[in-house]
Structures are given as C-alpha cells and as structure tokens.
C-alpha cells in the first residue's frame, strides 16, 4: 500500500522529479516536498480556498488533489507571480487597497483572481464577488479585496 510513485511536474517553470506516497495531497507535496510554502492549507476539504493553485492554467484546490495526479502537468503557485523584484499588478493592487491582513488566505485569492481576470478582463463588482465566492477571508471583510481585483483589472488592461 505504501508504494511510492514518480511525479515529474513543472512548478512555476521549474521541473521537479519526486517520489511520493499516493495519498500525499498536492498541497502537502508543494509545501513539504518542494518547500513551496506560499500555498496555504486552511481546511483540507475544499471549502476555504487558501490552497488554490493553477493546474494547467485552471484554478484548483490543491488540498483535494493528489500529487500523483499532476505527473506531467504544469502548476503555478503564488511564488511564481512576481517578476523578480516587481510584484504582479494584482499583488500591487492588494497592497494598495489593504486587501490583505494576516495574508493566510491571500495566495488562494491571488491565484483564483488571476485566472478569473484572464477569462474576464473587464469585470464589474458583482462578477468579482461571484468569482471569489469560493475563497474565505477572516480579516478584511472582502471590500478591499474586491476593490483590489477591480483595480488590478484596470491596471492589467492598461498593460501596467
């Protein structure tokens, strides 16, 4: 039962090759096997959204996927957002709008929002609230997060 499986996966452009137990979740794999601790685990049952990463571009819950499932796939995490010293416009907007406090839910919001903005570059507030409704934040009351995403949409449209 404790057979190990080979997983070769590209995370933020880097190829990793690891042997894992099948029961290892993608979140635990990223955090503890690869040391990419920016992806957070808030509920381990797919509700809170803290662990959201992108799998082949799609925002998904990494706590209810298994590492063995991403063999041969491409993952993006919060660590891959900034371009060196430059934060991503969405990250900038989060800071400008006070859209984070403790920062625990933030990576999940960022990964969810970026995927959303790619599909929907000119959203209104309702669409943003709807798109982010699967992510929980206990600190901000969401108003600042929604404002930041709308602002980021505008910055991205202007090619900021």
């Amino acid at each position, binding site marked *: 039962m404790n057979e190990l499986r080979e997983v070769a996966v590209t995370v933020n452009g880097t190829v990793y090759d690891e042997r894992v137990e099948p029961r290892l979740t993608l979140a635990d794999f990223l955090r503890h096997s690869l040391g990419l*601790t920016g992806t957070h685990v*808030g509920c381990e049952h797919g509700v809170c959204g803290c662990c959201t990463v992108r799998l082949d571009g799609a925002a998904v819950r990494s706590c209810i996927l298994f590492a063995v499932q991403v063999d041969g796939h491409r993952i993006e995490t919060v660590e891959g957002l900034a371009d060196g010293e430059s*934060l991503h416009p969405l990250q900038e907007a*989060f800071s400008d709008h006070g859209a984070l406090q403790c920062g625990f*839910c933030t990576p999940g919001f960022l990964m969810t929002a970026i995927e959303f903005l790619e599909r929907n570059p000119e959203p209104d507030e309702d669409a943003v609230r*709807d798109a982010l*409704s699967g992510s929980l934040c206990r600190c901000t009351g969401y108003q600042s997060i929604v404002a930041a995403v*709308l602002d980021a949409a505008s910055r991205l449209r202007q090619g900021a």
Partner: protein
Amino acid sequence: MDRMETPPLAKERTDGHDEPSPVSPRRLVGRSVRRLEDPRRLRGEGTYVDDVHVPGMLHATVVRSPRAHARIRSIDATEAKAAPGIVAILGARELGGDLRPIPVRLVPDERLLRYLQRPLATNRVRYVGEPVALVVARSRAAAEDAAERVEVDYEPLPPVTDASSAPPAPLFDHTPDNLASLIEEAFGNIDAAFARAERVVRLAFRTGRHSAVPMETRGLVAVPDRGAAEGRGRLTVWGPTKVTHFNRSVLAAMLGWPEHRIRLVEPDVGGGFGARGEFYPEDFLVPCAALRLGRPVKWIEDRVEHLSAINHSREQRYELALALDSDGRFLGLRAEIVNDMGAYLRTHGTVVPGLSAGMLPGPYEMQAYRCRVRCVLTNKTPTGTYRAPGRFECNAARERLIDRAARLTGIGRMDLRMRNLVRPERMPFARGTSILGEEVVYDSGDYPAALAEAVALSGFRMSVPDAVPGAGARAGAGSASGDAPEARPESRAGSAANAVPVAPARESGARAESGTRSDGGSYGREEPGRYRYGMGLACFVEKTGTGPFEGARAFLDRSGALVVATGAADLGQGLETCLAQIAGDALGVDHAGITVRHGDTDLIPHGVGSFASRGTVMAGNAVHEAVSELRTRVLERAAARLGVPPGDLAIGPGGLVRGTGGRSCTLAELAAEPGLEMVRYFRCEQMAYSHGVTVARVKVDTATGLVVPERIWLLYDVGRVVNPSIVAGQIEGGVAQGIGGSLLEELRYDDTGQFLSGSFMDYVLPGTTDVPTILHRDLGRSPSPRNPLGVKGAGEVGIAGVGGAVANAVADALADAEREDDELPLTPERVWKRVRCNPSPQTPAAAAAGGRNPV
C-alpha cells in the same frame, strides 16, 4: 465633499490628520502608508507555523473524545503501537503527574480552580473534542493511521447541553448545579428606579455560540536542544502568539522547567481574533512530547479538530428589564444573563461574562443597574474570548431592548437614544461597573455627535422603499433634509418628495434582481410584498488598551538602522507597520527601514501581548517613549561629535544627522559605539474607550426567511489614528465577522451533545457575497487623554455593534420590534418561522402609509 459619499471602492485611504502632529513633523502617524508586512505575504514568503521545518521533526495528532460526557474505562493502544511509523502514544497514564490544570490568565480567582482543564482527560471526558491522548509518528499521516487504532472504552454519562434548564447531571461531582460562578454588577438603587418607572420594557435575547475561526488553524513546533530530554539546554517552541510571555510562564510551571530555558517564538500568524494564542492543552502536550522524546515535534491542528478544540464563545441568554420615566429617560436596567461556559474554564476564566455585565449599560445614562450572570458548565467545548467578547452579545441585547422600548413608547428610536446617551461634558464618566478588575471610566467621546453623524451618514431616517424592482438609485447617504430627526416619521417609497430612495447600492451577482446571473439564485423573484426592508442601529462603547503595561526595546544596529522589539503580538492586524510609523516619527526616519520584532520571549524580558485592542495603545506608546528617548541619546551623541547643541540638530532622510552650518554625520557613524539602546515600559492603569454607531440596512425575503444585509454604516471614534488604511481594515473585517455572528455562524450541538458543526460545510463563514458594502467614517474628535499618543484601540469597534444593528433592522423590516424575544444568528429558517408565526397584517400599501417602527 464627504469622503463617504464617494463610491466605496474608490475609497480614499490616504487621508491624514490635519492638525499638526505633536510627535514629529514627519508625520508618519496618521498616514495610510503601505504595510511593511505585505510584500512577504503577497509573495508567499511569510513563515507561518506549518512552514517551520526542523530536521528530524516528528509529527503529532491528538486523539479526541467522540463523546460529550463519559467515563473513560480504558485506553488500549496495543494496535496503535504496532502501526508503521509510530513513535509514541502519550495518554494520561504516561503523562500522569505532569497533567496539571491550565491556569487562568486574566483575573485569576481561586474559586474557579476546580473547573480548570487539564491537557488530557484523565478519567472522564466532558465534551466532544476533548484530548484523550497524543500520538507521535514519523509523519502526520502515520500519526493519524495510529490514532485510528487507539481504542478508548467509554461509559456514557448524561450530557448537559442546555445552560438554561435544570441539569440532568453534574459535570463535576462537587458542583451539582453546574454553576461555576455567579457574577454580579450593580450601581444605584434598582428597586427605587423600577418603583418610579412610568414604564418597564422587557426583552429575552439570545446570542448563538460561535467563534473566531481564523483562516490558519493553530499549530506548534517544539524544538528541544540536544540534551533537553535529560534536562539540559533549552526548549524552543514556534507557533505561540498573542500572549507569548504569559504562555512561557505557564509552560514552565507545567513542565517544571525554569522559564529562562524556554523560548516561545511567534511566526507569521494567520489571524487570531481572541481565540488563537491562548494556552490550550496542546500548548503543553506538544512541548512535553518533544522533551520526553528528545526530538522536535510538530502539531498542526486540522480544520475539523479546530472547530471543536478552539475556544468557542458568545453563547448567552439575556432576560432584560428597562425602567423608563415618562420622558423616556432610562431609570434602571435589570439583567439576568446565563453564559454557557462549556465543559471547563479555560484561560479566560469568567472574563467574557464579566465583560457583558460590566459593559451592558453601554453609552447610556441610567441611575441604577443590577446584573447577575450565571456561568454554567455544559458538555460543550470550553469558551473564551472572541473579538469584542461579551460586548457583541450585550450590545445586541441592549440595543434590541431599546428598539422594543421605542416601539412600545412611541418615542423614535433615535430620539430615545439621544435622550439617554452620556453627554460629552460628563467625560470622564464613571460607569459604576468594573471589568477585568478595573473600574470602568469612559475617558472621552461625543456619543450624541456620533449618533447624529451616523444617522446623517446612513440616511437612517430616510425612507426605505418596499420592493421596488429596478430601483437603481444609490443610497443618498446624507442629510438631504435639515429636519430634526424626529420631525418626520419614516415613510415608504416615494411618499415624501424629499425622501431619498435607499435602494440596494450593491447587488452582487448572486443577488441581482434581474439579469441572467440571478437565475436560480437564493434570492427569489420580486413579487409585491415578498421583500421587506428595514434599518436598525446600535450605539456602543468599546473598551480598549487594557494594561497593565507593554514594553519596547529600541536600538540602532551598526548600520544605523532602527530595530524595535516588543512583547506585543502581530496576528495579522498590521502592528509591525503601526509601530514602525510611530517609531519613525519618534526618531525622525522613514518607517520602511525600521525592523519591528515581536512575539519572541528572547527579545524582551516582559511582555503582555495582543488582545483587547491593546497593541497600538500599549506597545505603540512604549515604542514612542523608547524611541523618543533613543532620539535624545542620538542627538546628544551627535551634538558632542559635531560640536553643536542638540537642539540645533535634525535627523533627516538617509539617516543623516544635520546641524546648523552644514555639519552632519550619519546614524551609522553614531551607532558604531555601543549605547544607543533603550528599553521602556509604558504603563497605563486605565483603559481607553472607543465608541461608535453601527447602522444596518437589510432586505428580508419573507418567503424564505433569508436576510440579506444590504449595507452597513459605521461611525466611530478611536482617538488618534496611526494608519487609516489599517483601521479601515479592522473596521471592515470586524463588520464582516459581525455579519457572520448575526446571520450565518453557529456552533451547534444536538441534545446528546454531539457536535454538528465540525466542518466548513456545516459551519457557515461569510464569503464575498454575504458581506455588503461597508461605509465608515472616523468622527476623529476624541483622542484619549490616557496616553501620550492619544490613541485608542480599533480592533473590536467594527464588530461590536453589528448584532444589535442587524437584529433591529430585521425587526424593523418585519415590523415586529415589539416582540418579547429575539435572537442571533437570524438564520433563514428562524426568520421564516418568525414570519409564519406572526405574518404581518400590513400590505405594502399600508406599510407605505407608515406603521413602521418610529425612527
């Protein structure tokens, strides 16, 4: 232009104070500077406790009771000990004599000692989730594999699930009635007040059990030095927060280790809100296991165990009676409160019910008050503080009582409050009660002005249209009319020419009344009379800045950079930035280059911590004092070096100390020699009191019972503001949590004591579409006279009044404010039952003609 009339999403966040700062001409204080914490947290580079990795680390999980009340006949770990990867199983038998009760942190009371919790149940479990054993293995998964195989034989005992009815069994044999404590607060002659009353208004009110539920669960990594298992070296524990110095003392006492050989370190923390960071059973078990095994041990609480393990809060029942004279003046208030404490008393002892008893009179004058709180033990998770503990509850009960009084007396809701609010000329105002062992004396504040402003801001007296499909006008939110507030009763849609239609300003996609996205939504179809709109408000006073002291150590490192360390904690609220702003102003340097350290017991010998909205007040003033004195030393040293009087020197950008005549030196040059270091403890014997008014507008779907909060307004005064953006975040986050406690969140048990809220599918936290637009404004009139910076705490202001405002808004919408009882959370099913039991006779037309609760 009124800043709150701008669209909320374009909210100005960089406003400063106009008056000159007494601290420094640089005036970092008062500006919404970007948070220093942000870059690392945005990049995923924060270090939260589960990010701490130590070589050779083992992993623990806790075996918890599945029973509410039972005797433990036996624990059989034979099979578990054979599980792959298992290292140790520690039960009460193994830990035996080490299992001392966890002491009370605040206001210790010897009479409470016999209700304290030990880290493991010894021979009896008293709630679902109570720790029974600790399993340590080579991975968390292996620990869980073994934990599944621990066989515990329980002999069931009758569960106690209702604090208000006669108990079927005692939790502790020495206390047959399960009454752990009886708290009494009183002033004035209550009997005389009621004897004189023109009218007595009663209300039964209940607040539901819920809690903080931060997004990061708790966790610990205990790292013993080599040799620690034999009693040598030190023990380092990562993960404590909030009150690390106190927790170190407790851990030392419980382990029988000297304090100086224990270091507690606070990492980045994913929210606390009162519940996280207290000393819990695991805070002993994990370090204890690490010492016994001589290996680092990590324990990360999972969400399911979190919901039954972390302090619950808020479960109170009120029986209130308010005596009024013929002018509507409050003569006296009588309160009987039952506080469901859960199965044990934890570190807060009876602080929460004590806060309810001490703060229930709120911002109102009254001649007499008598309150009794029965603190009753039940077979549920033990309770503690959660943001605005005791006040979310008592504010809601009191404000709902006042609306009932308004309804029954015919005096307007606002007018009744205005007649009774403590007036500014009465400050400082001795409340006549005490909390946390301290007399309550409000320091400053203009409560009537706050109410007047809140009414103007929210358009509280303006009409609220009854289901106007397609009404698209934004909230007027202002004083369209200069009429005295009581001059005109609220009128319905369009019935008054100058009534500003207060239509939904933000309809989320989930709730839009038209458009494809609304198809199938929880929000139903518009039909005449189906939706009812209401507004409610709540006035409150918040205690902040609890003493007795906090410290700051400030020094210049060899590069000339300022480092500030404090015993206060940062659980995500932005304390690092606030302290850097204060320190930057005090020294005269930019905040961005300042390092703020906190929550590490090795940094500073004494610390109290972050709770009760005290961080900025206590640590802020300590930092101000320490750095101000450090600046004096810096200038003295520079003066000697440059040969100019200190008074002619200024510290400028880049850490350049300039004198008149062009002579200058750098901070780095000055810091090359030791001595530029300062430790100061700021002491404050009296708390600072913030205050505010919360207004809620709700839409109630009478068909489903769904209450949609459409908008929340908050007018507050938190004294001098260090960082408006951070305060805004505290306000908005607090409001959102208040929405949760008012409408969504409830930790529920069935009548066998089984816990029904053990996952995020069962415990409903507010999401993006549940929290409305929040408009808030700082009255900014009342700096605290009790500290040099003039600051008051802001952390709990957002949540304090939400329950009362929402309960009143729903009663307003349903036109049943006269009902004798009310409760929170107002879940759809409860509201539906309420509508069904008491269908309002009003047609929309009749409602339009009046008949609402008077303003």
